[in-house]
């Protein structure tokens, strides 16, 4: 069976100053996602995570456009769809949860209207059954007394509740894929944990696939089946969460993992030196080499090729590739 979502060699470019400058916000990104699976997309801010997601739902800002690649979703190429066709996919088959629950809800519309809208437009549900549907949705995201609360307005709800409302909106169309773009960054830690549990339960109930965009590795460890690490518009390493946490191959993944506090460990936390790169002026060769502990001369000259470490485990790094080669040579000698 083909995967639910297959992004291959996606390139999304921003053009500015009348086309004189091109910023490759997403550069040759490929990944796949099966039904019911969860992918963690992680990286520092500005590395292209959000642009990747917006490319999938085809809601890029005017300056950006998809310059190449394919996005196969349920057997169809989304890059070939018109906006009109995409509208029937957004909110129905693919939903997205945005970062800021406070700002994601329209302050002047009731919860009922905002949650009911996708069902109203996509499934033509009206009247009593729409009310029933909204109540069910609110119940499923554990809003207490939904009949009462659906008449409320966003400002009458707490931050955690609002984010659950946003979750209900995402579920409203019965999607196959939910893209969650840092959905918990603006929540308290306890509420964050509750919300993540909720998402996990909902996923078990509905079998929806989730792309979890975050820079929080703790969330990835808790939520995801596999993860993709992005740096400067590229996926530098992807594999199952277990593999990556056990034996990361790319120095950037290693650095990210060693900047994660470990329970009981007294070792000082590692901070990655330097700044995330400016996408408009990338260094030559491997974009990470100026900040890399293991950089070799080759890294400054040539972009690393993909090296395969397992069935679903790839990384773009010269050092890792060399180590792999050596190990292979030693084994075959």
């Amino acid at each position, binding site marked *: 069976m083909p995967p639910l979502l297959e992004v291959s060699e996606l390139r999304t470019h921003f053009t500015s100053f009348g086309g004189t400058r091109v910023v490759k916000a997403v550069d040759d990104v490929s990944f796949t996602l099966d039904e019911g699976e969860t992918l963690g997309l992680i990286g520092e801010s500005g590395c292209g995570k959000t642009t990747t997601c917006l490319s999938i739902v085809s809601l890029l800002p005017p300056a950006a456009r998809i310059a190449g690649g394919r996005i196969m979703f349920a057997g169809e190429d989304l890059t070939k769809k018109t906006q009109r066709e*995409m509208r029937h*996919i957004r909110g129905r088959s693919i939903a997205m949860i*945005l970062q800021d629950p406070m*700002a*994601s809800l329209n*302050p002047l519309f009731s919860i009922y209207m905002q949650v009911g809208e996708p069902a109203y437009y996509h499934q033509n549900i009206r009247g009593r059954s729409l009310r029933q549907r909204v109540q069910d949705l609110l119940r499923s995201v554990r809003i207490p007394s939904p009949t009462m609360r659906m008449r409320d307005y966003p400002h009458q709800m707490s931050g955690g509740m609002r984010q659950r409302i946003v979750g209900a909106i995402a579920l409203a169309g019965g999607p196959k894929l939910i893209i969650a773009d840092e959905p918990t960054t603006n929540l308290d830690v306890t509420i964050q944990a509750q919300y993540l549990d909720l998402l996990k339960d909902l996923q078990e109930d509905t079998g929806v696939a989730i792309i979890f965009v975050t820079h929080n590795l703790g969330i990835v460890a808790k939520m995801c089946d596999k993860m993709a690490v992005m740096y400067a518009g590229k996926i530098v390493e992807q594999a199952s969460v277990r593999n990556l946490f056990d034996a990361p191959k790319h120095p950037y993944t290693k650095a990210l993992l060693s900047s994660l506090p470990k329970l009981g460990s007294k070792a000082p936390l590692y901070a990655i030196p330097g700044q995330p790169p400016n996408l408009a002026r990338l260094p030559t060769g491997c974009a990470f080499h100026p900040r890399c502990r293991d950089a070799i001369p080759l890294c400054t000259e040539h972009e690393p090729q993909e090296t395969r470490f397992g069935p679903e485990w790839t990384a773009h790094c010269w050092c890792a590739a060399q180590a792999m080669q050596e190990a292979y040579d030693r084994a075959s000698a």
Partner: protein
Amino acid sequence: MGQFMIRRTVYALITLFILSLTIFTVVRLTGDPVTLMAEPGAKDADLALVRAEWGLDRSLPMQYAAFLKNILTGELGQSFNYEMPVSTLYFQRLPNSLELALAATLISFVIGIPAGIVSAVRVNSPWDHVGKTIALLGLSIPGFWLGLVMILVFSVWLEWLPTSGQGDWRNLIMPAIALGWYFAASLLRLTRSSMLEVLRSEYIKLAHLKGLPSFTVIAIHAFKNALIPVLTLAGVNLVVMINAAVIIEVIFAWPGIGRLLYEGIFQRDFPLVQGVVMEAGIMIVLINLIVDILYAYIDPRIRLAR
């Protein structure tokens, strides 16, 4: 909420008090209004009589107390020329001014809001340039000159519309355009910027993510939010138009409040000028107070924030 209303009301009262003090002081600062007003060669005895009649021979605090009393009783003093309370004259003219102001508001809505929306939705497109040009010309072309040019073109040359006076819609259309012109431009600017702000918001992004038709997103989700500041401005504009349409009413011989003020100036009817200005101030302070309180009711975020 109650506290908010009380505080706003107190501020409004302070504003009105300062306004009355300002008007009182300005009239007294500039010397003796009676000499300014009198016919050349009037006898001193006559002047003294007029002074006594207006209470100008009393001490300043007494005079101010009398002025305040006039405001509080709602009379706003006696017009010298009409020999009637200023407030009576003001409210006689109010329906005419209201008619003109409502027509001008309609014009400013018809031009300003659609153009502002299109400008924002199609930002930097040729449509946007048209919108911006209207906004620019609205602030650069004086409304009264536009009125004169319209008279020249439509009344004198084309003979389509009557030059002045009050009557049916044909009398109303030119003064309404001349008056509404400036306000159309300011509504356009505000609609455009308010719409741009809303269109950039996360909830509009979410509305698109729900797969709603773009028209629904703009016409329902964005417009309702962008409309709040626009309607606020329009409400305040209406009251300003009622009271400040002096030149337009003069040009089109429209018997409104602005023309009343002009008559006061020309006949050197100081109590009338002073009273109309005070009445205009009272109207505007009141409408601001009402709008603030309504606003707090409509937008629950404000209600809770205070």
